[in-house]
């Protein structure tokens, strides 16, 4: 049973998502118990920086960043996204109940879940490509092949195309909610 594809690929990703929620709840409880809930306000800023850093992956794919392996940027995208989401979740726990930021938080969790699904699909594609390469007698790993632009395009378009068509609009809307939230806070903040 432990050798099954579902367990090997889906379980770690499901655990990562569950851990994210658990870590956020634990941190929130700890900060409140220590009367340090005010730190949550600033975690909104740092979390946003992490989420912004995760866009480096898109920039690398769009060739706005020229150097670095796509695989490295993908790992950064996943890790920075996870940490950023954790910080924003703790930030959400400081009991402000406006509709807009809570919508942004809910959508952020959906986008993070979608990102985990994307990771699952990518692993699946890599496994299939490796198998086909073996059948065709081609040496090397799928990771190396992914470095090739032609191969990456085919993977993106054919295998992950449908997923991206859902993931990217959600990311765009999350970005809009985040920017409007930040601007509204800045508008009502006392800067003096």
């Amino acid at each position: 049973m432990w050798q099954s594809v579902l367990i090997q690929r889906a379980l770690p990703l499901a655990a990562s998502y569950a851990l994210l929620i658990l870590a956020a709840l634990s941190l929130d409880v700890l900060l409140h118990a220590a009367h340090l809930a005010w730190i949550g306000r600033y975690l909104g800023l740092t979390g946003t920086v992490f989420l912004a850093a995760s866009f480096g992956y898109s920039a690398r794919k769009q060739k706005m960043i020229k150097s670095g392996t796509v695989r490295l940027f993908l790992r950064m995208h996943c890790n920075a996204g996870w940490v950023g989401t954790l910080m924003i979740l703790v930030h959400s726990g400081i009991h402000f109940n406006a509709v807009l930021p809570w919508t942004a938080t809910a959508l952020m969790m959906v986008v993070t879940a979608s990102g985990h699904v994307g990771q699952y699909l990518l692993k699946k594609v890599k496994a299939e490509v490796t198998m086909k390469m073996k059948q065709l007698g081609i040496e090397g790993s799928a990771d190396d092949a992914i470095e090739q632009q032609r191969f990456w395009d085919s993977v993106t378009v054919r295998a992950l195309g449908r997923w991206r068509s859902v993931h990217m609009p959600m990311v765009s809307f999350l970005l809009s909610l985040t920017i409007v939230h930040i601007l509204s806070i800045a508008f009502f903040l006392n800067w003096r």
Partner: protein
Amino acid sequence: MKPLLAFIASTVILAALVLAFPHVLLNPGPLMQGHQGFRKDCLRCHKPLGGAGALQCISCHKPADIGVRNVAGDFLAVDSSKVLFHGGLDNASCSACHTDHRGIGAKKALRTFRHESVAPTLRRDCISCHRNRKPNDLLHRSAQGNCADCHGMKKWKPAMFVHDKLQADLSKNCTACHKAERPNDNVHVNMTVSCGECHGTKRWKPATFDHSRVSGATGKQCISCHKAERPNDNVHVNMTVSCGECHGTKRWKPATFDHSRFSGATGKQCISCHKADRPSDGLHIGSQASCATCHSTRRWTPSTFDHSRYFRLDGDHRASCRTCHTDPAKYKTYTCYNCHEHSPASIASEHREEGIANYRNCVRCHRDGSEGGGYRERGGSGDGDD
């Protein structure tokens, strides 16, 4: 480009919605009852990039009018239980105590009260606001002065109790408040003086116990209070005199032990108490004599051992112990043959000339080093021991 278009479109739509319905999308919680009238008008209280400042508050709520008139200018019913403290406050300090968006009830929007903001004269008069909260116990009925002399402004406890604030008659009557804390032991049960004679007002210990306060027979019977402290050794178990004969009332040590108090056989048997103190060298191990033969009861050293009783160490005989006592384990044995003067052959020759056959125990006849110091004893059986 599609995600970029989606982002721009959604941002524009969202911004329009926020501008049209800020009270729906940005409102972090319901306003209090009095502010419901402008719940759609965020800028009534919030200044763009300036926050919710006190200027907006006092445009409606004049500090001097709070508690006197409402915002419409109508006078309020006089309530003598309320203190009008807002008039003396800093005009910019509204948000230090008040907020909003916490629900309809105005009390939900109160922050922790900052006494520091209140005018100094009013701040010193705690009771003017807290008149119904003063505890009605003996302590507080008797206490004089301001609450803040003992209590902090943030919490009632812990309090810094100052006994000096009590009225004179109560300040000497400790048990009026501390009745339950009085120890139920011999010392305290029979005590008739005030606790303050021995104990301070800040801590129970250390206490300055004056034994002279313990009257009559009890004063001599230390053991009636200090039973558990009596040492269980030979010295103390057999002791029949009062502890005070040897020990002071301030400290157990140093003690002034008088050996003459030991009566009969026990007094002579030093070792029955000082067994552990006995030196383990040859001189002391082999000795059967009482310690007092050489040592006094006041000090161990210097000892009163008199070597002259056996042989006077004068002239050429002021030598170290080991010159004669070659075996440190047996100080009772000695030899005179370690000097060139006293060779076995010459000694034998000299004594035979005198007709002395038994000359092995030199000090039997020679009590010092002089030529004529010996006296003849025929038929003796000296063997070099004494």
